[in-house]
């Protein structure tokens, strides 16, 4: 049962990193497509496009952060070997990882779409760069909230 707890906890870490990472990759891909289209016509927009394209990448970083948090909690980062984790504690860690895994995955995809729309917007109105950043940043709010919930939940889990 001790191994089951550890496995469940590691599954949580893996989901947080993988799902949020997949979402970010898709989001950045969508925004990148739009950026390439705009830059074909006006290569001078590279700087603005790059900022907007990078926005959906944060969810992947949040997922990675939670994965490190979990691995650290399990004692897997210091080289001292894994701590004893009951199946109940493992399950708690797995559930703690779900907010950032799921919200990160979906919000990155939708943020990518909003970023793509913003990139198209600055193609016609370069002076609206500030507004163009704010629109996809609104989507980011929910990824940040999910990250916060995941951190608070993980802090509440006692291991070892």
């Amino acid at each position, binding site marked *: 049962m001790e191994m089951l707890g550890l496995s469940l906890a590691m599954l949580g870490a893996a989901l947080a990193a993988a799902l949020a990472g997949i979402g970010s990759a898709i989001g950045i891909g969508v925004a990148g*497509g739009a950026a390439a*289209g*705009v830059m074909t*016509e006006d290569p001078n927009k590279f700087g603005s496009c790059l900022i907007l394209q990078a926005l959906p990448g944060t969810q992947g970083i949040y997922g990675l952060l939670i994965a490190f948090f979990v691995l650290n909690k399990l004692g897997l980062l210091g080289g001292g070997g894994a701590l004893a984790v009951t199946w109940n504690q493992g399950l708690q860690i797995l559930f703690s990882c779900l907010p950032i895994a799921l919200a990160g995955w979906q919000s990155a995809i939708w943020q990518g779409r909003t970023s793509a729309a913003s990139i198209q917007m600055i*193609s*016609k109105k370069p002076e609206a760069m500030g507004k163009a950043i704010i629109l996809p940043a609104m989507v980011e709010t929910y990824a940040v909230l999910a990250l916060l919930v995941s951190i608070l939940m993980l802090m509440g889990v006692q291991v070892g």
Partner: protein
Amino acid sequence: MSYVYTVARLRGMENHLLDSAFFSRLMDSANIDDALKALGETSYSQWISQTGTANFDKAIDSEILAVCDELKSFVPDKELLDIFRLPYDFHNVKVLLKGLFKVRGGETEGRRYDLLSKLGTIDTEELTNAIETEEYGFLPYGLTDLIPQCWQLWDAAKNAQAVELLIDHQMFRAMLAVAEGLKMPDVIQWVKFRIDAENLRAAIRLARMKYDAGKALTFFHEGGTIRPDDMAKLLNEPQETWSRILSYTDIGAVLNALNEQGDMKASLTDVSKALDDYLLKVLEDAKYSMDAPANVLLFLLTKEAEARNMRVALVCVAGGLDREFGRRLLSNGR
């Protein structure tokens, strides 16, 4: 297939479209040389330098053709371009057949190759050869069966207008078939609205000729949102009531606007302009989408409106025509 890249690139290309302020300036040119000088800063200049200043019509066609070729390189569904270009194929078929009808009638100078448009999807030389040698096998859009039907009709009745109608019926059938093949609801809807607009244009023309409603059905095309029967029935009603009768359709709003301006007696050119603007407007929802394929069609139509405006402006300036009249004819392109 994702249209994110395509739409983004179109947004960039939209920046090069000429706006109404430019056309206003063009209209103010003292003579054609000044107007062509103003065009020097636009993408049209390269074509004018090739075709010469006297042949600006060809230069305008070359510009649209270049845009179509550019779009072809990055639009995922080429059929979207075909929907735009297909009417030019049917125009070419009309030109070639009418020429041959005249030749058969004994006129040696019947052929008018200069009226052929290069904007069609079928190469004009291939189309000419196919029609003149009666080898229609490879022709798309139902032309293989259509052209022999046209000949039969011509041989039986010698009625060029009936032949033209037969060609137009097939053109709209082909446009609808291509749109339905794409499975894009907004594009299908646009083709239906286009058929409605064409039918309404015909109805207005027939009403002014006081044409008998009972014989008018053949003038209307199938496939629109309004049935040809209902269109023909309009001819029995006063034109002022048409907008109320068609209030259940989107095109009713165009009639309503003309009614409100007291413009139901406006020239056919004004009605045509209102309908062209309407066909652009119905696609405008696509502007708010970052990946709607209808943006391709919207861009092409806007470019076509720009070309139309260019023709109007240059003809007005070159011919010394009334500039105010010319301004009225300008479409609301960009």
